[in-house]
């Protein structure tokens, strides 16, 4: 049985208390909303993408500690990554929170995001962790619609 501490790690609590890159990004050229109607988590992810590289990331909204920390960690981690890298990271991240990461060595590529690996023991919370990521992918693809985890 996993301990609650595996889910609510210090780094997650820290990002929940003081989220990074929180707020609307003034010069964003891509944005998308993520909404989880089940629990009411609602975030907008802003991206500034130039020449296929994510120059800046911001996010706004409200949600639980897991969704907020995940958004915050993601925003910090994606800066400077190419679109292709971001998509690959999303894949790896998603496999991690689903508990389906086939090659554990790929965890390294996720850096601090590994703090969210405990989510895989809480199936009801996987959507919280991946909400901002779905929005980020939608923004990258230029889909201005709202993405839902449902």
């Amino acid at each position, binding site marked *: 049985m996993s301990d609650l501490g595996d889910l609510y790690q210090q780094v997650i609590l820290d990002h929940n208390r003081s989220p990074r890159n929180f707020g609307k990004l003034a010069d964003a050229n891509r944005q998308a909303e993520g909404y989880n109607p089940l629990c009411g*988590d609602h975030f907008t992810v802003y991206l500034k993408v130039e020449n296929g590289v994510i120059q800046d990331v911001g996010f706004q909204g409200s949600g639980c500690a897991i969704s907020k920390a995940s958004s915050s960690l993601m925003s910090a981690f994606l800066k400077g990554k190419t679109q292709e890298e971001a998509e690959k990271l999303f894949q790896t991240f998603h496999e991690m929170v689903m508990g389906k990461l086939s090659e554990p060595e790929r965890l390294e590529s996720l850096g601090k995001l590994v703090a969210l690996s405990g989510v895989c023991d809480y199936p009801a919370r996987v959507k*919280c962790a991946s909400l901002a990521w779905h929005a980020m992918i939608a923004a990258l693809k230029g889909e201005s619609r709202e993405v839902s985890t449902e």
Partner: protein
Amino acid sequence: MAIATGTVEGHRPKQTSFEVERIREDFPILKRKIRGKPLIYLDNAATSQKPQVVIDAITRYYSAANANIHRGVHYLSEQATAAYEAARAKVRAHLNAREDREIIFVRGTTEAINLVAYSYGRKHVKKGDEIIVSAMEHHSNIVPWQMLCEEKGARLRVIPMNDDGELLLDEYEKLLGPHTRIVAVNHVSNALGTVNPVRKIIEMAHAHGARVLIDGAQSVPHLPVDVQDLDSDFYVFSGHKVFGPTGIGAVYGKASLLESMPPFMGGGDMIRTVTFEKTTYNDLPYKFEAGTPYIAGGIGLGTAIDYIGQLDLSAIAAYEHDLLEYATRAVSGLGGIRIIGTAREKASVLSFVMDGVHPHDIGTIVDREGVAIRTGHHCAQPVMKRFGIPATARASFAFYNTKEEVDALVRALLKVREIIK
């Protein structure tokens, strides 16, 4: 015999007082451990647990009396039909309806409301008419009416509520008028616990010639309901919230109204004769019960009603009231808590938010302590919007819950504070 009627008569004499420890013995799931800790089940507004007699009645039906009803002339079919119809009589008696044929079995409250909206609503609601719901309805008592309004060009009006979660009857009076066709309101709010003055609400609607549907999903488990005294036109509820199985519930409707309504679904059992030119419909209640129903569910519900019938209901009501007050004081006492729903008249539900902690995190952390509560919008998004919150944590009680369990909830909430600083 027990199978034929699904009765628990003789199970034990009617209780004249209320001993919670004895009651708990009747519910096998309460002995379960969750993550090594005793289950503390405080999600009764979502669904209640089942006493052994209900579980046994369903098992007995399938193992000794399973047959289709209203069709066969063979022994088992007659037995199954008798048991199913006996369950209908029990529901009638429990709601104090006049006649058995005023009770229609459905899957649950949601189907019940859809039946009334589809059948009564489509026949009687026209362009320019108005349907009134309240600001504290469950989505199931909003969406079917919205669909009807959209189809007919009618208008949905909403009775507002105050900050305590009490309906504003003065505003309701202003909404009523010559265009009002239907008023649909819950008896007890699932998100706030408010007990609404439905008798008054019905009286006011009737003064304007409107018909009233009362959503009894949260009231039947906690309050005595007398549909004749209320003069309710329709009263609906779910079996699984009154200690019966999921997938069964009932519509009570005044016979005169049900008679005038077209069928909800077509098929077997709801017809008298069928030719390719014309079909004549069966009498009440079968007109509304197309297809093979959930026979075991009906029998299980009948048994659940027998079960609560042999308890001392006034003692239970007093006990639940006391428990809710105790829980409200204990949870408020933690500080940094806002109780959502502070009506004077409340039943069973304690909805709250905690400063700086999202309800979802509360739910996950208390679950690790074996405490099952509901977190989210409780299928009442307009209520959340009204109070300016995305979600709440909700503890909801049944008569088998104890003050010790409330204490465990409080300890679990302290743990939430400890973890999410």
